[in-house]
């Protein structure tokens, strides 16, 4: 069983909402990345998302653009990213790990080889931002043959027929983009979120994660009212940007995520009570 499916089954049984932090591999320094991942898990992350740096991150805002540029300056390529995953897996066999990135570096390696390498390293799913369901048949097949899920984005603009298509191909969870915009934009409207998440839920039995533009305990808690998973990316990456040592980065991750975790758990317990009534 894929670690993601197992993890969401556990969370469901516990009535908890998943916290999914995103960090860019190699940012702020490649030597910090594995410890950053472990720190995230210790601070309460249920799944972790690791960004594969790319030179032209068309769907990302300034924070992740900068993180990718810095990671690339340190020479963080796909081989390094997979090494980080292997290293992470030496101490953590349980936490699901998702690689997020763009198609060209994957195609340059060859999608088939990429799928095999990622599975061998201990990756559980891939999210390719510039590979919508329409173009995904081949990649989806190759990933599935190695037991990897492909995560698809669903946006506020997504039509019902597109939603059906993505839901058919999706594995692991469906990732609802909470805003019309790039990652890290600050215009999340929590109140309009619930009906959209319900619309997605009507069409898939997979858990629904929400991300893009969520920052801080308060927003995370608000999103946790409706979502099965809350993705925190740019807000965390932004804080890591100024860390000049492994220790500082680890501390920053803990300090940022621990209160988020706590706020989300309070919501989850109230959701449980509601469900019980």
């Amino acid at each position, binding site marked *: 069983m894929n670690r993601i499916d197992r993890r969401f089954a556990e969370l469901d049984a516990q009535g908890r909402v998943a916290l999914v932090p995103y960090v860019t591999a190699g940012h702020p320094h490649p030597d910090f990345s594995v410890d950053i991942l472990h720190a995230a898990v210790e601070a309460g992350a249920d799944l972790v998302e690791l960004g594969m740096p*790319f*030179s*032209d*991150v*068309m*769907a*990302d*805002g300034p924070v992740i*653009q900068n993180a990718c*540029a810095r990671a*690339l300056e340190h020479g963080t*390529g*796909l*081989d390094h990213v997979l090494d980080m995953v292997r290293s992470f897996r030496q101490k953590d066999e349980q936490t699901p790990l998702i690689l997020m990135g*763009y*198609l*060209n*570096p*994957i*195609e*340059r*390696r060859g999608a088939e080889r990429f799928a095999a390498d990622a599975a061998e390293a201990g990756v559980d799913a891939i999210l390719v*931002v*510039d*590979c*919508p369901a*329409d*173009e995904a048949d081949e990649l989806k097949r190759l990933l599935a043959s190695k037991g990897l899920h492909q995560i*698809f*984005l*669903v*946006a*506020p*603009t*997504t*039509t019902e027929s*597109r939603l059906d298509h*993505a839901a058919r191909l999706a594995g692991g969870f469906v990732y609802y*983009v909470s805003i*019309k*915009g*790039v990652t890290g*934009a600050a215009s999340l409207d929590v109140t309009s979120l619930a009906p959209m998440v319900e619309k997605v839920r009507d069409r898939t039995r997979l858990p629904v994660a929400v991300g893009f533009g969520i920052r801080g305990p308060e927003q995370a808690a608000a999103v946790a009212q409706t979502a099965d998973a809350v993705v925190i990316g740019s807000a965390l990456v932004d804080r890591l940007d100024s860390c000049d040592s492994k220790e500082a980065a680890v501390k920053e991750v803990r300090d940022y995520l621990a209160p988020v975790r706590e706020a989300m758990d309070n919501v989850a317990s109230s959701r449980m009570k509601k469900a019980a009534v």
Partner: protein
Amino acid sequence: MAKTASTLDFSPALPDRSGHFGIFGGRFVSETLMPALEELDQAWRRYLADADFMAEFDRDLAHFVGRPSPLYLAENLTRQVGGAQIILKREDLNHTGAHKINNTVGQGLLARAMGKKRVIAETGAGQHGVASATVAARLGMECVVYMGAEDVRRQSINVFRMKLLGAEVVAVEAGSRTLKDALNEAMRDWTTNVDDTFYILGTVAGPHPYPAMVRDFNAVVGREARAQMIEQYGRLPKALVACVGGGSNAIGLFHPFIEDRDVDMYGVEAAGRGLSGEEHAASLCAGRVGVLHGSRTYLLDDEAGQIRHTHSVSAGLDYPGVGPEHAWLKDSGRAQYVGITDEEAMKAFHALTRSEGIMPALETAHAIAYGMKLAAELPSDELVLINLSGRGDKDINTVAEVEGITF
């Protein structure tokens, strides 16, 4: 009224419904944009078949752009080269000075028909930015143009023109600070403002329907040229020559000739400081197949799949990808793609300026350079048609800088 040929033959076989030219093209963008691309695709198909819309497009091409543009026999240059006769399709005489206006007039009308109040554009040399700002001014729309900071520096005249036209010019500091980064930023803007904004993409690259739509709006160049060749010379040329960055002027010229199998087609890429090194922008000559800016095409990347920084003396060719239809024409063998260095382009710039009194854009100078080489190898009864895609006024600062002249 001069008759333009834009309503003829607008239904080519490719791309297919999902926007593919063989393995090339497609729609590789974030989900947020996919519905907008579907909406645009539907609107484009609908209005191409709408007689009133196309009549207005034709009227604007005739009276606002100044079409048809003439064919000009470059007798002095021909004599100097000593080979085939060199004929120029004078897109430099269009309003705003390049072929780019054909497409922006079309997309501007489409934006209005779709009820959009705000247009955005990316630009390299600034010609597309100026053409977009021009159309936005006329249609009373807000216009934001994204331009790499390096290009803002080397194309300062065009930046000022855009501002005079009322556009906001945003200098993009990311990455290589050139056209590819401007395109990324325009896509981000569109992703954020997708409800009220129309993205006027300037070349035959990007996600479907842009490669096909921009081609269709520019194909007036080739249709006119084909008719003019028959009318003025009684035959089609031996070869077509056009420069290729993203490839819009080349596709505009080539497309109506695709079925004319005896007409050779040459796309001229920027070989910069030479194809053996990395300082060039020749994705078809020296690149490989990958995915960039929403389509599968030839591109320049490193072993890890990161997009490479490119170099060309001409900002408009300084781009690491190319339109997917060119990738298709290359692989199918229908068109040949060649490289011209900065130095060769500069020589051709001067040669045309001094022999004919026509100052070409530095992008266009690449086509002139290859056209001269080609003509030299052909007998004098052959005809070579070069797309003179833009005028060179915008480039005088660059030419001076390259040649160490200060004003």
